[in-house]
């Protein structure tokens, strides 16, 4: 498997993921396990809610974003996520939505304590089929260096 390492990334570079179709059954199953609010699991209750229909829990949106991030090729030699911030959910994610993720490298730096890795900062935009923003956030990912 071809991997991209810390050295291979440049500030300003952009990447676009595959598209993920949000399946109602999957969304409801996920919500039942992890966030069983009525407007995530019960179609009738969701219709009566301020959203007018089923919507995805924020944790599910983040999971979809993670899945989409993993579809970007060549794959990143990630060692783990350090943190996220400025995370917003401007529009709900709904069953049937076709979701795409776009990322841009905003910063990179070598680890101060571990010479075998660096930290890459991204700004991420998650959009639906109508180009509406479903989520946006910044994320810091620890990435292995090629020269170890």
């Amino acid at each position: 498997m071809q991997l991209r390492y810390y050295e291979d990334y440049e500030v300003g570079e952009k990447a676009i993921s595959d598209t993920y179709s949000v399946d109602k059954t999957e969304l409801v199953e996920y919500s039942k396990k992890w966030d069983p609010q009525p407007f995530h699991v019960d179609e009738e209750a969701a219709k009566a809610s301020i959203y007018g229909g089923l919507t995805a829990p924020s944790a599910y949106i983040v999971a979809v974003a993670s899945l989409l991030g993993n579809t970007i090729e060549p794959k990143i030699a990630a060692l783990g996520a350090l943190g996220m911030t400025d995370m917003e959910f401007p529009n709900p994610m709904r069953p049937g939505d076709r979701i795409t993720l776009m990322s841009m490298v905003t910063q990179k730096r070598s680890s101060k304590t571990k010479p075998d890795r660096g930290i890459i900062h991204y700004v991420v935009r998650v959009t639906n089929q109508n180009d509406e923003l479903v989520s946006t956030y910044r994320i810091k990912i620890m990435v292995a260096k090629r020269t170890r």
Partner: protein
Amino acid sequence: MRYFEDIELHHKEIFGSYSVTKEEIIEFAKKWDPQPFHIDEEAAAKSIYGGITAPSTYTIAVCHSFTTYWDPPVAWMGALGWQDVEFPNPVRPGDVLSIVGECIERRGSRSKYDRGILRFLIVMTNQNGKAVLSFKTKAMVARNPDLVGARTVKKSVAEEAMNAYFELYSSGDYEKTVDTYYTDDIVFEFPGGKYVGKEAVLNYFVKLHDGLKEIMKPRSLLIGSDRIAAELEITFEAEKDAPHFLGKDKTLKAGQSFTAINSVFYDIQDEKIRHVKIYRP
């Protein structure tokens, strides 16, 4: 059920405990974040973590599963955003996780009366007291519908009463209008005229409408606690010639009609109108 009003600043909520299994981590990671160090024990043993660790999305999911366990439950309306999401230590199979959430900010929604916005600092720790996740989350929470309802009902009653007032006035029964809707010390004001007291106002109405029918239709109503603002469409229909009605020497002839838009303020006292002030464009 707990509403926005029920959760005070610095209120703390403690939840526990969630037992993490290897099978659950691997199953979750295979679907949402299939990195080798999440799904493959051999690869994980050789990784910087020395064993299977949970994806950050799993850690977040576990944390959110606790929102259900608020007791009594909270009337959540949805998440607005997260800040400073950090994963200081990895989550591993066998971990037992618990959470402390503290309300660090609360305010009413600026645009929607039925809800408020609460911000929480959430810290999830493992069995050794080490933090595995910390973040700040901003959530919409419904206000108590009984309290919201009181205001909504009062508002709709005022709207209904005003519509009944416009209807009665437009029927031409000025005596009943003045008697039903105005206070004894009513002040009726418009550019170039001012009448004080029920009798003076009624005399003015009767004189004004000699041979003229006036229909008042509200275009919009803005209802406050003691003041109502209205934009009214007013139509005068002449049953006989009304000299000077449209200005000096300009007669509104029998059968003709004239429509204008007025802005009117009503001061309300004890559910009656105490002051009418009319602005003409």
